[in-house]
């Protein structure tokens, strides 16, 4: 269980315009590349330093690789990070303002309080 690493993926992809497009177009390839090359980068540090132990479990890798934001919510990914990145990727596919955001809410409608824990 590595909520932190899911959040780290969402955080780093969301902040890079090229990565946003790459993840939209090729989720499986982007997640595979990111886990191999970026997951262990220490972000607030000199470049080149890295951790050695961070990896996704199968459910996390599958959720990210299929753009499954419902599953990400269930896994406790930070909802702000998920929402922000998925708006960036998919709002453009909807003609009506807020249509994607409303669809997103509707797909989560089966969740009751308490929501999945997001603590990392």
């Amino acid at each position, binding site marked *: 269980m590595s909520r*932190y690493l899911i*959040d*780290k993926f969402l*955080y780093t992809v*969301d*902040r890079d*315009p090229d990565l946003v497009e790459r993840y939209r177009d090729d989720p499986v390839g982007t997640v595979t590349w990111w886990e191999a090359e970026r997951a262990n980068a*220490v*972000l*607030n540090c000199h470049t080149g330093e890295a951790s050695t132990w961070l990896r996704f479990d199968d459910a996390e890798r599958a959720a990210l690789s299929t753009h499954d934001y419902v599953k990400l*919510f269930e896994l406790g990914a*930070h*909802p*702000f*990070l*998920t*929402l*922000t990145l998925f*708006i*960036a990727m998919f709002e453009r596919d909807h003609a009506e303002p*807020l249509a994607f*955001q*409303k669809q*997103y*809410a*509707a797909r*989560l*409608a*089966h*969740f009751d*309080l*308490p*929501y999945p824990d*997001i*603590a*990392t």
Partner: protein
Amino acid sequence: MAKVVAVVASTHHPFYYRASTATGADRPPFADEWTSKILAFRETLTRANPDVLVMVGSDHFHQLWLDNMPQFLVGKAPFYDANWYNEEREFGLPRMLLRGQEDLSSYILREGLDAGFDLAFSNELRIDHSITCPIITLRPEADLPIVPIYTNIFAPPLPRPKRFVQLGQTIRELVESWPSDLRVAVIGTGHLSLELGGPRQFGPHGPDPEFDRRAVDWIASGDLDGCLSEVTLDSLHAPGNATHGFMDFMLMMGVAGAGAKADYVDSLDLFHTMEAYFTWYPNGAPAA
């Protein structure tokens, strides 16, 4: 000593900038009323004629990240760049540059540490819409030096509500003991009920209008005891999964003081969330 000439608390709705500047078919039907309310709210700060703005907000996973997360952080820098790529992308917010008031930053850090708050600091802080939204609404000239103060309402474990109130009380005491002749406004933004990335997001109103009504009453009447008796880290999940941002309003109630009735109160029921605007004049209302 410095004088607190205004205490200002509001929501920070990142869509205001785009809504208020949109024209023609792009202008949403609520934009005129919203703009009118903002102009009236802005006047409450303008009348106080501040020299310095202490700005309380919360970074939204921009510069502050889970590998190194402070609970309370004070910026101490001569300048603050502002707004981020994903805020331009989603909200159309402009890049900004604000001056810092380093003397007051230093004073708050030193005296805050001595008062029992282990404040983190940053000498290179890029601020986000939690601080730039109130600049846009309240002081769009962006011409006054600021002291940014960030709180963690976002990444659990969070400080409890009482700690936010205590920090607000301490900020008030520190500003009023700062050896300076400058006129200081303390401005903070938070949320009423709010859901982001959950099933109750982007509804026709905020996710919990009853919470919003009670919250506005607590703030407007300065009812810190009533608010603290009901609001806990656990209880804030019920009105919406991003409602912990209400603790920044509680911080501002601490700045204003227990029992201090707001001199100006307004609100606007919008889709997604309710907007709310409050101003206190601790040293008496300035002449109109």
